[in-house]
């Protein structure tokens, strides 16, 4: 079980957070409160799946939050035009795919540094989202009943999809040739290329997949609140923080979905409790920022056999 030592450490941290919460206000742990507060975890969770794959290849995607905003606006436009739910969903996902594919092709085929590509598309996608919204509806669009049902109905498709995608991504990463290739790229791209790993294809694929996940996250967000260009604002920071807290190395080559999930849970529980108990969002930011740095320090000093080189 030595391999999963860091995951146990995270689990311990989550328990500590929950214990403090239970001590201060036992009500927080009640299932009603937990369920009520859980709604936001799906968007964060979905995006971290793709981000984990990207960071494992030593890449990064700063544009996920903006892409989510763009998807949300296109969903809003479709709903505004009273299109059938299926079409709305398809349009939203297609927008996400396109946004991801643009990132992916620039990174994989034109070989621009992912930080630069997504730094540019970060502003661009949000810009398009705002432009599109103000040029058309000029206001957030309330989710149609059909979309709402996907998230909050008896058959919460988004949650089910999230569970399925998590399992699928974990297996992909841990047990398949594709996963092995992603780790190889993260450790040493040149050697991976010389071993015949299809680098461009894999990279293109993971950015596109992340775009698709942004589309799903946008559906979840829009159903809970409304379809707006503001969807996913600064969410990329939480996403990256969760993945890194989960033990994925920003230098690439190391990371697991299990860790990422625990990272999401840790951030989520901490945020919800601080928000809920003290009712002060600024405190949450301070706690999460500190948590991120402490987690990386902890990983470095408690678990790394030998220091990372870069």
């Amino acid at each position, binding site marked *: 079980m030595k391999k999963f030592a860091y995951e146990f450490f995270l689990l311990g941290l989550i328990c500590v957070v929950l214990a403090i919460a239970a001590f201060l206000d036992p009500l927080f742990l009640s299932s009603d409160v937990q369920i009520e507060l859980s709604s936001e975890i799906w968007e964060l969770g979905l995006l971290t799946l793709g981000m984990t794959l990207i960071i494992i290849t030593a890449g990064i995607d700063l544009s996920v939050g903006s892409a989510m905003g763009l998807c949300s606006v296109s969903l809003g436009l479709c709903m505004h035009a009273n299109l059938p739910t299926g079409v709305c969903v398809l349009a939203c996902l297609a927008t996400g795919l396109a946004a991801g594919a643009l990132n992916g092709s620039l990174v994989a085929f034109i070989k621009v540094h992912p930080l630069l590509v997504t730094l540019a598309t970060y502003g661009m996608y949000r810009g398009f989202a705002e432009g599109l919204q103000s040029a058309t509806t000029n206001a957030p669009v309330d989710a149609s009943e059909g979309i709402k049902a996907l998230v909050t109905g008896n058959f919460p498709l988004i949650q089910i999809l999230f569970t399925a995608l998590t399992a699928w991504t974990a*297996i992909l990463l841990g*047990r*398949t*040739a594709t996963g*092995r*290739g992603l*780790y*190889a790229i993260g*450790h*040493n791209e*040149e*050697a*991976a*290329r*010389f*071993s*015949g*790993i*299809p680098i461009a294809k894999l990279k293109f694929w993971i950015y596109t997949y992340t775009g698709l996940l942004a589309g799903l996250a946008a559906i979840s967000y829009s159903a809970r609140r409304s379809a707006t260009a503001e969807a996913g604002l600064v969410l990329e920071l939480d996403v990256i923080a969760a993945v890194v807290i989960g033990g994925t190395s920003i230098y690439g*080559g190391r990371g697991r979905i299990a860790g990422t999930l625990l990272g999401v849970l840790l951030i989520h529980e901490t945020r919800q409790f601080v928000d809920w108990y003290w009712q002060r969002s600024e405190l949450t930011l301070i706690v999460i920022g500190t948590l991120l740095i402490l987690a990386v320090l902890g990983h470095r000093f408690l678990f790394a056999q030998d220091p990372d080189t870069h």
Partner: protein
Amino acid sequence: MSRTSKPLITIENISKSYGGVQALSKVCLNILPGEVHGLCGENGAGKSTLIKCLAGVVSPETGTITVDGKPLSHGDIHATEAAGIAVIHQESTAFLDLDLVENLFVGREIKKYGWLNRRAMERQALAVMHRLDVTLDLHTPLREFSIAQRQMVEMARACLRDCRLLIMDEPTASLSARETKTLLGLVKQLRESGVSVLYVSHRLEEIAELCDRVTVFRDGRLVATTPIDQLDRNQLIGQMVGREINALTRREEHAGQTDEVRASITGLYSRGSFSDISFEVRAGEILGIGGLVGAGRSEVARAIFGADRYDQGEIKIDGASLKKGSIQAAIEAGIAMVPEDRQHQGLILPMSVSENLSLTILTEITRHRLIHHGHETAQVQHLMRRLAVKAANAKMEAASLSGGNQQKVVLGKWLAIKPKFLILDEPTRGVDVAAKAEIHRLIRELTEAGMATLIMTSDLPELLTLSDRIQVMCEGRIAGQLDGATATEEQVMRLAFPRSEAQLT
């Protein structure tokens, strides 16, 4: 040089261990003024650690180093510099983004009123380049220089400081024969001027030519320090490995060679790298390609393997032409390549031996889209046995293996796909004597079993002993062909030099 003079450097009882592994134990050594002192040993024998201790990069746990009778403080780069010790490290210490002058003076810039004095630095740079008899542009970023030229810059950097001891850690590992000759000339010139040199090399010819005394290391211990004239080649190897090794013998003539053409390359051309490259390699044959570093050999290898694109020409494997610029297509066609840079292209160092070995056969060990661990382990165990990889287990990081074993893993990774055509680019660079012999044995075995092999090497004995046929490249073209059974080093070198220079020599 007089044998009785007082030593410049005295090393006493130096020990150093890394995480339980004793890298150096109680080493005593002295270096006389104006002597070239050879340092030999297999990889991991402790040479590099000793150099790092001398250079002040790591601190030894016990022992003392004295320079001219004055003790040197451990682990202090500046104290080392002040004592007149300069090091040319094995790994490149060039700053590729900086130009030549900036490289020469990095860390010891000349200042005037606190500002950089560029003019003075240029003047000194020119002087030192003149002394070394090298002409290089002062304002070109080092990125645009060849590896050999960068090595010259390192020499110049060391000479700039009026050092009393110059430590050179395998300075010729990536140099061609001609460049090596220039470098050895420079070392001799330094010795004339009274500088001591500590010279580390795997190339025994160089040791024999250059050194006054030679010290052999094995497993972190000093085996012996002997004047070079009391030692022959086999004794030296014997000291290094602790057992006798059969000297390399030439391959039995054309054993297993067939007439079946495996790979045919016609009119390959790449702007600025090579042109008019045509040759055939038959099944069961080893074709060696010799030439100076920078002659375009690696570029040809990379083009065939699909790592680089080329402008014109055709590559056929078993008669079928190969898609250009695609490594996947090359592998599909049965081509494998052991690239020149093991650490960056050959291996993924942080991954385990097992993961490295199975990287090329991921589809083969996949069942129902999942990697089958049983199949993987079986394949990996088989490969490790066949290559005699010395590793505690397959889960070890590739980085923790010695150079020779790392190279075996690279080779093994490609044997796994049962290649029809194997390209080896400098397969034994930085590999110790024992592992080198095993790698050679493997290459022969495989070729005799029907594989076609293309080997590019700067190591002349290796080229001559392994190859059935030899082609020599010069300035991006094939300068001539020789028969592997009869070729001599002189013949190869004559073809390797550009025409005008060949007439001069």
